């Protein structure tokens, strides 16, 4: 660890770009979309100014961006891109190609609501619906976590036991465009954390005859998919170790789930991203009133940390799950259904109360979160152990 920590004011997008600059990927292919655009803009400045060695590929769409990333990654290059909302949806087809061809691409997502109606603001549905694409998936609460997860994601994705792409999300505007203090790392620290180039077992190379992306039918398709599942299972331990190493490097504690005031808690909030900050602020307010409540923050969404959920929520009476994503006709919010699966059949687990909130940049205020907390307690008191509500909208 180097001596004095440098503190810089940066927005979430700027933090991602600056962290990526320290990683200095071989190729960046990106297409602009609000609220991600600043990431690609800043990074193209670094390229233009000769501050990085990266080949920057300007493409005509996000489908092309991810396709270019796959092609570059197959040559053994370290590859980075960024997108949001409709851009991520347009990449969706190629997300599966990237993971199926085991390309450890890193993707920053500026989480934004889907159209229609058209909206540019924060919401995490865009990233959550990529849950089955075999990508490691992380969320960040702040510009600092955006900075840290940029670097961390390369470490996880490129690990020989993983070799899967990784995406991490920060919410549009309230994180991407908000200025916060960021403790930066030195180039040397990042070089010590991430090898200078990828460990490549097999790659596209002009002087070797190889085929990538060939047709695989009933004979071997399922075996290849099973290998992806094993890689995803491995990603849990790799992430845990990488976070531990990063914590030592940076002096900032980083864990797969963050526990806040949970030791003696009877009730808990569960959330991710910027909402997790609001949940902690509400915990402080409720604790001041004598409520025994804590907060659990999910940083790693895929692979889903099922055992962490069980351990953290064991003994809790009721869990209030604040989910800033939309799903329709589902048995629960997107994250709630995962938590319910993780806890099903286990003893001593809380009732689960999911709340769809904050869509399209709508703010669920701290007093509103307190009201939601009271709702969960009330449900629990009358013996209802699973509920899902929409909150913070005009009825």
């Amino acid at each position, binding site marked *: 660890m180097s001596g004095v920590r440098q*503190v*810089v*004011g940066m927005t979430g997008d700027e933090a991602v770009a600056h962290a990526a600059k320290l990683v200095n990927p071989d190729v960046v292919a990106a297409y602009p979309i609000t*609220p991600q655009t600043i990431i690609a803009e800043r990074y193209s400045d670094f390229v233009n100014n000769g501050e990085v060695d990266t080949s920057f590929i300007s493409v005509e769409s996000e489908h092309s961006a991810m396709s270019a990333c796959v092609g570059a990654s197959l040559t053994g290059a370290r590859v980075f891109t960024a997108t949001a909302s409709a851009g991520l949806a347009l990449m969706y087809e190629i997300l599966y190609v990237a993971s199926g061809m085991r390309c450890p691409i890193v993707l920053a997502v500026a989480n934004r609501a889907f159209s229609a109606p058209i909206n*540019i*603001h924060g919401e995490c549905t865009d990233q959550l619906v990529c849950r089955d694409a075999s990508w490691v998936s992380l969320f960040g*609460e*702040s510009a600092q976590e955006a900075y840290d997860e940029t670097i961390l994601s390369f470490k996880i994705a490129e690990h020989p036991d993983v070799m899967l792409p990784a995406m991490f999300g920060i919410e549009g*505007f*309230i*994180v991407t*465009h*908000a*200025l*916060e*203090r960021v403790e930066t790392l030195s180039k040397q620290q990042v070089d010590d954390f991430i090898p200078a180039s990828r460990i490549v077992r097999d790659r596209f190379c002009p002087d070797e005859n190889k085929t990538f992306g060939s047709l695989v039918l009933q004979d071997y398709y399922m075996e290849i998919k099973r290998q992806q599942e094993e890689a995803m299972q491995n990603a849990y331990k790799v992430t845990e170790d990488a976070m531990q190493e990063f914590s030592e490097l940076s002096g900032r504690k980083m864990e797969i789930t963050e526990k806040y005031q949970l030791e003696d808690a009877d009730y808990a909030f569960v959330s991710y991203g*910027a*909402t997790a*900050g*609001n949940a*902690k*602020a509400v915990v*402080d*307010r409720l604790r*001041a009133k004598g409520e025994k409540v804590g907060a659990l923050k999910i940083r790693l969404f895929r692979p889903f940390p099922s055992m962490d959920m069980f351990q953290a929520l064991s003994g809790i009476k009721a869990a209030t799950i604040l989910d800033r994503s939309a799903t329709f006709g589902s048995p629960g919010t997107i994250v709630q259904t995962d938590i319910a699966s993780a806890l099903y059949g286990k003893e001593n687990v809380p009732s689960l109360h999911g709340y769809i909130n904050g869509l399209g940049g709508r*703010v*669920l*205020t*701290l007093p509103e979160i307190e009201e939601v907390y009271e709702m969960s307690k009330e449900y629990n008191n009358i013996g209802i152990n699973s509920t899902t509500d929409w909150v913070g909208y005009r009825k």
Partner: protein
Amino acid sequence: MAEITDVRINGRGGQGAVTASRLLAEAAILEGQYVHAFPNFGPERAGAPVTSYARISPEPFYEKTEVYEPHIVVVIDPTLLDDVPVVEGLRDGGTIVVNYDGEKDSLVKYFEGVHANIYKVAGSIIATEEIGRNVPNLVMLGALIKVTKLVEIESLKKVTLNRFKGVLGEKNVVAINRAFEEVE
């Protein structure tokens, strides 16, 4: 819980409200404070009313909500007084700092029934005379920090010179100093 100060800056598109909230927050960071500063993004265009925000605390804090109940409101453009409810959400006993070149008594009449500390500075005049353009965003910060002591003036000067290199930065510093002295 952390002692948080919420600042809202009311301006018009093109007047630098976003830059003002950013530099105020950067000055606070320079002093080791904690911040969350952001613009309100929508269909902005030159001349339309815009807002930006800075949440500042000497201690770490967690909330990431928009600012609905500011402790402090800064009005960059005096014509907003007739168009926009600039005191909306202002906390009881809060502070409002207005770019206004008339007498203070005539300003106070805009805020009848509002329980707040009202300050004014002739920001447009200062900006025009010292910078050569009516862009009073940083001028207003000079007035703001005199009456609220949110950050030290030296910190504001430092981030201003860092953002605007050369003569423009120096002119802004002169204007900030003048607003700091002339706010009433």
